[in-house]
C-alpha cells in the first residue's frame, strides 16, 4: 500500500531523513520508534504533505501512485490520515462543521454522494461514543480548550469518522493517561485493524504497542531505519534503550 524508497528530506537546508526505506502492505500495522530528533515527525509531515519539508531524493508511492506529487487534501481523499502529535486549535469552527466539511470534501473528490446533516451527526455520535468522548465536545470549536488527552482522543474520533485506508499516527499516545491510552489503542484496533487497511504508528514508548500489537517494529535513528523486527523488538528497546540497539545494528 505504501512504499517509501531511499527517502531524503530536509527542512530549511538541514537534512533530516537520510535514505529511509519502508514498505507497508494492506492488513499490516507498523511501528516506528526512535530517539528525539531521529526524524519521526518529519517522516509523518513529509507523508502528509506539509509545506517546508523538501524531498531531495527518493520516492514514496501510495497504491502505486506518487504520493509526493499529491496535495495534502488529495492525499486525504485518497485515504491517507495523519494523526497529529500536536492537534491544531481552530477557534470559531466547530468539530461538527469541520468534520462534515472534511468528510464531504473527500466524498466529493471520490465521486461519492455527500452525507446529509442527520446521517453525519449519527456517525459522529457513534464514533465519539466508541472513543468515550462526550458528544457535547463535537459542538465545540476544534481542539479549543481541549486538554492534551482530549485532543488526542479527538484525533481518533476524526479518524473513526473519516475511516481512512492508511493511518500515520504521530505520537498519538503522548499526553494520555493509562485509561485513555487503552481507549485510544482499542479505537485504533477497531477502526484500522482490517485486511484492507494499514497503520504506521510513530511512538516513543512500547505502552501503546501492548494494546495495538504491531506486525513490524522499525528503529529510526538519524534519518534511517537501522533495525526492523517483530513486536518483541519494542520490549527489547524499552529494556536496552535506543543507543544499544543502534550500535548493535
Amino acid at each position, binding site marked *: 500500500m505504501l512504499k517509501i524508497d531511499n527517502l531524503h528530506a530536509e527542512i530549511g537546508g538541514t537534512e533530516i531523513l537520510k535514505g529511509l526505506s519502508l514498505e507497508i502492505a494492506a492488513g499490516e500495522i507498523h511501528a516506528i520508534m526512535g530517539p528525539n530528533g531521529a526524524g519521526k515527525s518529519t517522516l509523518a509531515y513529509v507523508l*502528509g*504533505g*506539509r*509545506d517546508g519539508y523538501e524531498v531531495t531524493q527518493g520516492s514514496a508511492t501510495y497504491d502505486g501512485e506518487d504520493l509526493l506529487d499529491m*496535495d*495534502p*487534501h488529495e*492525499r*486525504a*481523499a485518497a485515504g491517507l*490520515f*495523519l494523526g*497529529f502529535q500536536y*492537534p*491544531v*486549535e*481552530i*477557534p*470559531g*469552527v466547530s468539530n461538527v*462543521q*469541520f*468534520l462534515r*466539511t*472534511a*468528510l464531504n*470534501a*473527500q466524498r466529493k*473528490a471520490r465521486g461519492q454522494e455527500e452525507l446529509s446533516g442527520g446521517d453525519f451527526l449519527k456517525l459522529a455520535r457513534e464514533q465519539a461514543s466508541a472513543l468515550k468522548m462526550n458528544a457535547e465536545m463535537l459542538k465545540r*470549536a476544534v481542539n479549543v480548550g481541549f486538554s492534551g488527552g482530549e485532543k488526542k482522543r479527538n484525533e481518533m474520533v*476524526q479518524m473513526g469518522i*473519516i475511516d481512512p485506508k492508511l493511518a500515520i499516527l504521530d505520537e498519538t499516545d503522548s499526553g494520555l493517561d493509562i485509561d485513555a491510552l487503552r481507549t485510544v489503542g482499542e479505537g485504533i484496533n477497531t477502526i484500522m485493524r482490517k485486511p484492507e487497511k494499514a497503520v504506521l504508528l510513530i511512538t516513543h514508548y512500547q505502552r501503546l504497542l501492548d494494546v495495538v500489537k504491531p506486525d513490524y517494529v522499525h528503529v529510526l535513528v538519524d534519518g534511517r531505519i537501522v533495525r526492523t523486527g517483530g513486536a518483541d523488538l519494542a520490549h527489547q528497546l524499552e529494556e536496552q534503550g535506543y543507543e544499544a540497539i543502534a550500535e548493535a545494528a
Partner: protein
Amino acid sequence: MTETLQLPTRRDEAWRYADLDALAPVWPDIAGKREEILVSAGESASRQLILEASDPNVAVETLAIRLEKNARFALHCLAIGADYGRIAVEVTLAKGAHFELGGAILGTGDQTLEIVTDVRHIEPGGTSNQVVRSVLGETATGSFLGKVSVARDAQKIDASQSVKAMLLDRTATANAKPELEIFADDVKCAHGATVGELDKQALFYLASRGIPPAEARRLMLQAFIADAFVSLEDEAAHDAIEAKALAVLEAIT
C-alpha cells in the same frame, strides 16, 4: 440654502485614511447628510446596514443616534462593495443606555473601506461594545476609527472595542485606531486590536483532513468574521447579514 461643507482633508482625524479623491465628486451631494435615529427611554432598536454603491462607486452612510435613558441600539454593518465606502456612526448615550456595534470590512483590489464611530457617553452607567472584523486582500485598505468619549460625570461606564484584521496579502493595509477621551474617573474602557494572516498550521490541519485550500480558507475566514454578528439576536437578520458577508468573502478570496 445652506452652505456646502468643505471637503474634509487628511488632517481631519476622522478622515485620515479616507479616499478623498473618490469622495470629491460626490461630496456636494452627501455633505452634511445624515440619518437621525432616536431611541426613546427604555426602548430597544436594531439596524443592519450594508453598503451599496453604483456609479460613481462610492458609498457613504452617516448615522447620528441618540439613546435616551436605558435605551438600547444594535447596529450590524458591512463595509463592502464600494471603491470607497464609509460607515460613520455618532452615538450619544444617556444614563444606562447601551450601544452595540458589529461590523465587518471586507475588501480587495484597491478598495478603501472604513467604519468610523464616535461614541459619547454623556451620563453615568452606560455601556458600549464594538466588534469589528476586517478581511483584506490585494492592495485594499480597511480602517476602523473608534472614538469613545466619557463626560466628566458619566461614571461607571463600561466601553469596549475589539478590532481584528486578517490580511490575505501582505500588500493590503489595515488601520485600527482607538481613541479614548475620558473625563470621569470610575470607568472601564477596553480596547484591543490585532492584525494577522491565516494560520498556516491550521490550514494544513484542515487540508490533511481532505478540505481543499480554498474551502479551508473560507471556513477560517467565516469563523473569523462570525464574532461581528454574534450579538445580532434576530436569527433571520443574523443569517441574512452573515450570508451576504460570506458571498463577499467568496468573491474576494
